[in-house]
């Protein structure tokens, strides 16, 4: 039964543009989907390795800017009079390069910042994001600074033998985001249920014990950071080509907070958690803006965040799972899942 849930959810979400015509709501679904991808990437770090990164928006923004710049082209002078000219490339290559550059940044940041843990790790990651934001704000020749990068082309995709697509309409963007989301979900699922994923969980549960059984801590943490940053970069690229304009505000701390709260609300360390939490927090502003001023919306958002942490620290998905297993009163279900876990060990 529970195996069917992702398929049913997929079918439901795939049919939404067929009956939902309202462009505002469709737009809310698309941006929510993009943030769900980012939240899934954060969940890989926060939920599976237990490291809270509050600079995750840096990878999102790096993906967005890289992708936009690759497809727009740029002409900048580096130190020493060296001029770098880049002609516009096809948009799909921007997506790929944006993802790779974000993953590379994840590697560097992971390599450096996993020397410290806990609160210090959090502060290093925030600092990294703020430095990147200030660079985006001040390197005007490359990023246009506060004037924003504008007229970013929509995503295009040429498939040999199938045809050429451009993702200009909301409907097509919806399916693009859904497709990327499903791919990222599958990749993360494969990763989490692999040897690597179990090593990550072991690190989260007890780092010293994990080390004593021969798990190379830094290696697995950096690996998680690379995957996580790459997926975040991919979502940033989707964001840039969907909105067609980005400014240094994509690095805002509140975006990271949004991702974190999506993961926590849904349930960290569960595959469905970021999706459930993401849908809730993606649509809270849509509901709240009908009756509240922007400041009041944010106040409610902050209060909601405190309440969630107080009442449901484990998140919705684990709570629902527990409720279901209690409802069915089938202790063997739990035993069975343990057995299947062991089979894959």
């Amino acid at each position, binding site marked *: 039964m529970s195996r069917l849930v992702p398929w049913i959810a997929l079918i439901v979400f795939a049919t939404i543009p067929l009956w939902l015509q309202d462009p505002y709501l469709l737009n809310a679904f698309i941006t929510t989907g993009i943030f769900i991808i980012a939240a899934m990437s954060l969940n890989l770090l926060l939920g599976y390795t237990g490291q809270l990164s509050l600079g995750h928006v840096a990878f999102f923004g790096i993906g967005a800017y890289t992708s936009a710049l690759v497809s727009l082209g740029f002409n900048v002078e580096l130190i020493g009079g060296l001029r770098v000219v880049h002609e516009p490339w096809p948009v799909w290559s921007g997506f790929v390069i944006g993802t790779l550059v974000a993953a590379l940044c994840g590697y560097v940041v992971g390599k450096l910042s996993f020397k410290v843990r806990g*609160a210090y790790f959090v*502060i290093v990651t925030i600092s990294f994001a*703020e*430095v990147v934001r*200030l660079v985006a704000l001040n390197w005007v020749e490359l990023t246009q600074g506060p004037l924003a990068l504008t007229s970013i082309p929509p995503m295009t995709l040429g498939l040999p033998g199938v045809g050429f697509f451009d993702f200009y309409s909301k409907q097509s963007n919806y399916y693009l985001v859904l497709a990327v989301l499903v791919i990222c979900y599958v990749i993360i699922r494969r990763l989490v249920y692999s040897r690597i994923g179990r090593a990550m969980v072991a690190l989260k549960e007890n780092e010293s014990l994990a080390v004593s059984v021969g798990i190379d801590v830094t290696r697995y943490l950096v690996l998680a950071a690379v995957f996580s940053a790459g997926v975040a970069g991919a979502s940033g690229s989707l964001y840039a080509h969907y909105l067609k304009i980005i400014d240094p505000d994509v690095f805002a701390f509140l975006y990271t907070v949004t991702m974190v709260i999506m993961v926590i609300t849904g349930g960290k360390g569960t595959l469905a958690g970021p999706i459930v939490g993401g849908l809730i927090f993606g649509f809270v502003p849509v509901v709240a803006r009908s009756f509240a001023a922007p400041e009041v919306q944010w106040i409610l958002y902050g209060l909601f965040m405190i309440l969630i942490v107080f009442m449901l620290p484990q998140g919705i998905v684990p709570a629902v799972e527990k409720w279901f297993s209690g409802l069915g009163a089938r202790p063997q279900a739990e035993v069975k899942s343990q057995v299947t876990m062991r089979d894959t060990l």
Partner: protein
Amino acid sequence: MTELLQHIVNAFILGSTYALLGIGLTLIFGIMRVVNFAHGELYSFGAYFVYLVAALLGLNFFVALLAAIVAGCLLGALLELVLLRPMRAADIDTTMLVMIGAMIVMQNGEQFVWGGVAKSVTTPFPELPLVIGPFSVSWLSLFVLCAALLLIALSYLLVNRTKLGKAMRATFQDRDAASLMGVNIQFIYMATFAIGSSLAAAAGALLGPVYVISPQMGNLASLKAFAIVILGGLGSIGGATIGGFMLALAEEFGAGYISSGYRDAMGFLIIIGVLLFRPTGLFARVERIG
């Protein structure tokens, strides 16, 4: 040369308020192990409180300063009671999220109450700056420096010369042992948070009239305070004081000689650099990587 000295003078004044911010945070972070993201909001709370009392109610500027410090203390105690006490058993990430929620609520509350337009406070000091040889310092800045130094000295005396301070130091070293020796841990936590908050409010109250007061002013203050704490080492008032002055120097020089746009980047580069190359801080006596 004159420019260099003027930068140093400016850094001294800025650094004294940074030190207040840093001391407040180093006490809270060191003793309670709470990553206080609302620290910057207490800083802007102090600034707005001075605006409320001095500009709107029309009371004396010095009365307003004292009122802001007391109000910061009370608000800190309230935050501790409502948000942190129920979360005592929670891990550091969880309390961090609660404080981020508090930060969002407080910042937008300010925006809601005071609006987005920046406010300014008029002070009883003469407009004309004091000119000594080639430099000029405004009287207000000079007062800010003296008041901040006085508060730094007071907090040093509080922690090192009073019974409360002794209990705070004991709690910092070993919470359980302190508790066994009869220290009321709940009270110490509340006092620590209240004192830290009032120092942040004092920094805002002093610096607010120098610049303008806006809801966004607290945004970077928390992170700068962290930079100071990391630079100075955990739980060390002297370290936080030196850290505050060093951060201010780095910012002044960064803004003066590199680019004013990168002024705020200095703090973050310091954080990254110190944590990566000397993770115990420059002056730390205690092992701190958890």
